[in-house]
């Protein structure tokens, strides 16, 4: 599971999301411990011009060539700026968590990704919503 830090460029984080088809990324602190989860939609919140979020009608009036360029707004921004001012509670489980525990954390925190940590908070893996559903649903 790829991870990012607060200093990772926002565009690089977006590329990771797209290339690896991830619903979100785990953000690590300096000690490589999971700090928070960056959901993919949060990246869009920063990339989509604020005036289009305030007034969705305006998204319709922007011509196609300009509409294709909105991700450029992420230029020179870092993951730190993509995160909400109030850090979210961290969706994290132990290595021995059951599927139900993982699902409960995802549902309660509305997080598409859950970090798996060892003692001391060191990250040893991550579970995405896809992983979870694959495991739970019969093939």
């Amino acid at each position, binding site marked *: 599971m790829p991870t990012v830090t607060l200093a990772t460029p926002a565009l690089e984080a977006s590329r990771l999301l797209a290339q690896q088809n991830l619903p979100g990324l785990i953000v690590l602190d300096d000690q490589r411990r999971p700090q928070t989860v960056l959901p993919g939609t949060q990246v869009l919140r920063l990339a989509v011009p*604020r*005036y289009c979020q*305030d*007034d969705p*009608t*305006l998204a319709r*009036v922007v011509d196609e060539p300009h509409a294709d360029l909105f991700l450029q707004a992420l230029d020179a921004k870092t993951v730190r700026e993509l995160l909400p001012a109030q850090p979210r509670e961290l969706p994290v489980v132990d290595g021995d968590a059951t599927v139900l525990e993982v699902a409960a954390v995802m549902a309660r925190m509305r997080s598409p990704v859950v970090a798996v940590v060892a003692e001391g908070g060191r990250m040893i893996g991550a579970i995405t919503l896809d992983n979870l559903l694959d495991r739970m649903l019969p093939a």
Partner: protein
Amino acid sequence: MSAQAWLAVAIFVIAYGFIATEKIHRVAAALGGAALMLALGLTDAEHAFFSEHAGIDWNVIFLLLGMMLVVSVLKRTGIFEYVAIWAAKRAKGLPFRVMVILCLITAFASALLDNVTTVLLIAPVTILVCERLGVPVAPYLIAEVLASNIGGTATLVGDPPNIIIASRAGLSFNDFLVYLAPIVLVLLVVFIGLIRVLFRKAFVYRPERVAEVMALRERDAIRDVRLLVVSLVVLAVIMAAFVLHTVLHLEPSVVAIVGGLLLLALSRLDAEDVAKDVEWPTLAFFAGLFIMVGALVANDVIGKLADAAVDLTGGRLWFATMLLLWVSAFLSAIVDNIPYVATVSPLVSDLVEATGGDGASSVLWWSLALGADLGGNATAVGASANVVVLGIAERSGHRISFWQFTRYGLVVTFVTLLVCVPYLWFRFF
């Protein structure tokens, strides 16, 4: 004054202090004060709920509710975005022309609808146009909100203080059109001259950026043509009914609530969804405020203040007019003009009576309206629309500081009030 009257004054002053300083939410302060007045027997249910002069003025509440319903539907039509972009294109992207035309649209819309909604709808599209033109956004937003407060002064429904004044003074929609709309037109002309000077650095013309504005597709802003047509027809009917008050004998509050509900029914929108956009906290704030002021009226506090005001002015109508104009502007610049006008209206009513109660003394109502409405332009916190625009600007990364707004607002307020002085003189004396 009786001990009961002093207690009512103390509760009112404390609640007003909370409203002005925003130490606690204004709705909580107004309703808390009203609840205390009722619980302590400083007013009663008869006054609070059934007296328009010493309790909740339902005409004001239902007029606001009706217009909020209209706005809630109208904003879903995309008409504001369409008109703003169409106008920017007609201005050929010339920055000064764009600013003027956006200000005029804002002023006109603010005269028909409430100011906060108008700027909420115009500000985002302004940011889009300015970013396309490569001009600084802040001056355009500041100019628009100043124009909104000026335009809102023109009509009975343009600004909440006018609604309160109309109800308390028994003034009609046409009275506002006759006495305030002409001076507002003059003020807008003066205002355009002012913004040419005040914002001269914001008019950087970049021919290469004009094509980016011309590429915007304003037609795509309107998705539901039926909804647009229905909304505009109902709005036109409402305005016609306001104007035809003398023929139809329908109170503005009745016209607004019937119009709002009619539009809601014809729009085929989800009523619950539309109702969510009604500013219920604002209506509750008004109710609390009216009960508090009503308690002051019931305990003769306002009567005593009016006596003092009559003594102070000594029956000199021109002196009283000027005092009301400038003091109202000063106070509205630092506290919200809605609670100010709600408090002062009963006092002005007594003052009008004391100075003859005839046509000439009605000038006091107009000086109150002009002072309170235009005074809201002076500072960043003078009117709700100012606060809303500053919030939109900040979220969009174009922060406008308190002083950045206020240094323009003060100039515009002072000049517009100055223009009102000869108008009031020649029109009423």
